[in-house]
């Protein structure tokens, strides 16, 4: 039983762990972009006229909400290549980082879609009618009246979703990507695990601080964006 720990060494690990920040940032940014895009597509499907597309979109959302991200990672990273080899497709050229980005995009797209749908539906019906009443066409009304208000409503949830996504990037280590947590594990195993508790606490602090920053930015953006649009967000 390891029983030695020295919390005073925790800060010294923080700069070392932060060296992996670009990897985590890359994963976060790409998963966020693809997650938003995919989420928008799914939202359009879920709110659209075609019944079949609606069923598929809603099914996709509840499927993604039901599966743990870790299982999704294993399914895609370990399971999919095996399946593809069976039909003669070789996926070994895809990097681990890309797998992680794919998994996190899929996982977050469901949350993004739920956010978009809820925000869209939260815009007062009268807004669309008012836009039509002054002669706007469907898409113009959407772009100029509905969308800006929906975005205002979505900002707090978007901030939350990004923070969730950021925390989920920590799962990249499970396939061997050297992200923040991957780096932490590497540092820890370089000293045969003797300092693992300190290293994990240091990693926790890194995530915590970045989350606090993100929350702060999210609140600031919300404030700027909703200035004079209070009605839309309340």
């Amino acid at each position: 039983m390891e029983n030695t720990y020295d919390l005073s060494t925790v800060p010294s690990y923080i700069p070392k762990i932060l060296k992996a920040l670009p990897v985590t940032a890359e994963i976060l940014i790409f998963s966020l972009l693809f997650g938003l895009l995919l989420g928008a597509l799914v939202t359009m499907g879920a709110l659209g006229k075609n019944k079949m597309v609606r069923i598929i979109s809603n099914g996709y959302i509840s499927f993604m909400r039901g599966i743990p991200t870790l299982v999704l990672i294993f399914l895609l990273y370990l399971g999919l290549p095996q399946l593809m080899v069976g039909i003669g497709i070789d996926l070994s050229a895809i990097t681990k980082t890309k797998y992680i980005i794919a998994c996190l995009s899929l996982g977050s797209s469901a949350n993004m879609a739920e956010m978009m749908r809820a925000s869209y539906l939260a815009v007062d019906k009268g807004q669309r009618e008012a836009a039509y009443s002054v002669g706007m066409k469907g898409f113009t009304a959407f772009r100029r009246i509905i969308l800006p208000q929906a975005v205002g409503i979505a900002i707090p949830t978007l901030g939350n979703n990004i923070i969730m996504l950021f925390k989920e990037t920590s799962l990249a280590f499970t396939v061997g990507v050297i992200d923040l947590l991957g780096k932490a594990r590497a540092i820890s195993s370089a000293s045969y695990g003797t300092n693992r508790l300190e290293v994990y606490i240091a990693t926790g602090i890194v995530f915590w601080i970045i989350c606090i920053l993100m929350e702060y930015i999210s609140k600031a953006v919300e404030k700027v964006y909703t200035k004079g649009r209070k009605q839309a967000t309340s």
Partner: protein
Amino acid sequence: MINLGFILESTPAIIKAIPITLLMAFSSAIIGWILGLGIALIRKANIAIVAQVCAVFVSFMRGVPMVILLYIAYYALPILIYNYGLSIGVEIDVNAVPPVIYAISALLLDQAAYSSEIFRSALSAVDEGQMEAAYSVGMTKTQALVRIIFPQAFAIAIPNLGGLFLGLVKGTSLAYYVGVYEITATANLLAMPALNFIESYIMTTIVYEVISFIINKLFRYSENRLKRFRAGMTV
């Protein structure tokens, strides 16, 4: 391509792992939510220092990924337990403590933090007049909270608690990394010898989807039951 024989053979093993997943989820939800309600009340009453400590705790729990919390609990708790044992003169064999205890500890603290935020906003959403009415018939504060305020706050909180619980069940899959043989770990273990990953994870996915579906249904059901009196409430 897909080995059906493997699926048939290993299904019982995966199903046997469901109880440990549910044990983690339910025990950390029950204890965590009670703690969360406590935190919410402390922060609402704005009790000096304790409220600030709670705020920092909530912020930390919300900022740190689950898997890191699990690692910290897994490595820190045995030391704490051991040292506590020494301080009361007992040498505790911490290796005998099953890892699921550490996993539940981390999960329940996480639940306490998130649920406290849900309870806090739900408590604020209950109309102030309800408390006054309870006072006006002569109830004590505790009676008013337990009989009038909490049931209403709970009804408001149900949809969010449902989402939180779903996230918790999914989060238990991470306990794999601290050596708990729950569903995901079992699937991995089964897949390893003959590299039956796709079969194993398809099964795992189905199991989680079914559990999620049932949880969703349960929360929807209780939401609808409580809607009767929610209709007129401002949310």
